């Protein structure tokens, strides 16, 4: 795989003994010698360091400043961006004309411009989409900065010792802070359900920052394997699996990401691709819903597992979109889509594993409580 891209931490991953795999076109660490289970538990107990440099970082500038960028971007996402406070961040999603999701992303108001973080696999498409539909914005892909995530209950103390000011941030705050590793673009957010930060650092300083973080006793490197089990326990969607162009935000149980002002009756109601369908589903309900699933046995029900209403007979009514073992809950866990009448907590349905239908209960998401510092 000579054409795989690498992040500035590639040599460090190898030095740390990571098992590397291709992911979204990048050579990425799937696990370190500790293994997925220990990495997962360590992140929930102390702090984990993730290399997420494969994700896209984009700056949007417009002559009219943040307000213009926000106003134009509101035509692509059902998010209240004009109402987003300075140095605050919001979760959102690009929708298509059918109301499906093109990608999910983070959007930040950085005073005179907007900063967005997009998924690695969607990077090229998202950037083309923004360039095509944000006529007054200059869309600058940041290609000389790495992105690290420091997640877990010890993250605050660890980062604040290196970067004073980090502790003062609240959940979903963003900050631009000077440090011995140059200017850091920090957000207090992540993809694990834990408190923590995502830190954009220049490529040249990325390894030094990673080493400084790893030097702390509480910090261990975490690979993509544990990243996946952590985000699944936290009930967070993985683009291309739990959400995609065929799932609407309403089906995906993401209406919390659509603020009141963009909903029916709001001051800036609709005005994003697929608004008609999405607002209709918000009013009248979608045919299906993304739910949490707890298999009653120990066998994980993985992505693609077909779901049935009854133990015997009938056609599949839905399928699992993510499934794994949850190290913190010490049980298997899945997410998937079910027809709305079945998508209520406590309903027992059946997942077909190796030809046998096994009971699985519709469960509340997240599987583990979020530990955000609000």
């Amino acid at each position: 795989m000579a054409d795989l891209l690498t992040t500035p931490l590639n040599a460090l991953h190898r030095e740390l003994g990571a098992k590397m795999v291709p992911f979204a076109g990048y050579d990425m660490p799937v696990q370190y010698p500790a293994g997925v289970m220990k990495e997962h538990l360590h992140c929930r107990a102390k702090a984990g360091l993730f290399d997420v440099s494969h994700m896209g970082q984009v700056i949007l500038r417009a002559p009219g400043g943040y307000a213009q960028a926000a106003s134009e971007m509101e035509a692509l996402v059902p998010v209240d961006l004009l109402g987003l406070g300075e140095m605050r961040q919001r979760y959102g999603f690009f929708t298509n004309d059918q109301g499906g999701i093109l990608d999910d992303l983070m959007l930040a108001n950085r005073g005179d411009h907007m900063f967005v973080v997009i998924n690695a696999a969607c990077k090229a498409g998202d950037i083309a989409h923004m360039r095509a539909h944000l006529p007054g914005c200059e869309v600058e892909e940041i290609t000389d900065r790495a992105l690290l995530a420091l997640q877990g209950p010890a993250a605050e103390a660890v980062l604040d010792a290196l970067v004073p000011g980090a502790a003062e941030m609240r959940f979903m705050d963003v900050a631009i802070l000077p440090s011995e590793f140059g200017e850091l673009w920090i957000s207090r957010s992540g993809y694990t359900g834990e408190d923590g930060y995502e830190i954009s650092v220049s490529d040249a300083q990325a390894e030094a920052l990673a080493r400084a973080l790893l030097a702390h006793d509480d910090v261990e490197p975490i690979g993509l394997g544990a990243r996946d089990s952590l985000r699944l326990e936290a009930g967070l969607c993985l683009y291309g699996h739990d959400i995609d162009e065929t799932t609407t935000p309403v089906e995906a149980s993401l209406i919390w990401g659509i603020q009141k002002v963009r909903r029916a009756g709001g001051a800036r109601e609709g005005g994003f691709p697929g608004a008609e369908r999405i607002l209709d589903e918000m009013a009248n309900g979608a045919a299906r819903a993304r739910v949490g699933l707890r298999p009653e046995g120990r066998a994980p029900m993985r992505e693609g597992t077909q779901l049935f209403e009854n133990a015997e007979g009938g056609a599949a009514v839905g399928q699992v979109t993510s499934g794994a073992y949850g190290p913190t809950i010490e049980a298997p866990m899945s997410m998937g889509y079910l027809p709305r009448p079945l998508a209520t907590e406590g309903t027992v349905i059946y997942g077909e594993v190796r030809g046998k239908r096994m009971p699985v209960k519709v469960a509340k998401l997240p599987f583990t409580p979020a530990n955000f510092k609000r």
Partner: protein
Amino acid sequence: MKFTEEHEWLRVDEDLVVVGITEHASEQLGDVVFVEMPEIGTLVSKDDEVVVIESVKAASDILAPIDGEIVEVNEALADTPGKVNDDPLGDGWFFKIKPSDLGQMDEYMDETAYQDYIA
């Protein structure tokens, strides 16, 4: 002890053969979270899928290395599948088989050959 190319080990224990997976295999699989055992009394032929292992990464099958009858399974793995990682050659064994033909073991590698095989 004998070793298969599928990274199973076989140990003769009186008139039975104990089967498990090697340390190399358990490292490759990652943390084991679920083991589905065959029923005691099942008659198996070589290469039948007899055990399913789910790790944090994926599901994989363990094949019967020889013909025979499953006479005992490691019930402890139902609640503590992690024994497969912690002690693959000991407490992490899977099942005991009453062989139809012990001669089937001859085709498998000894430890030296297996170490060369995974090197």
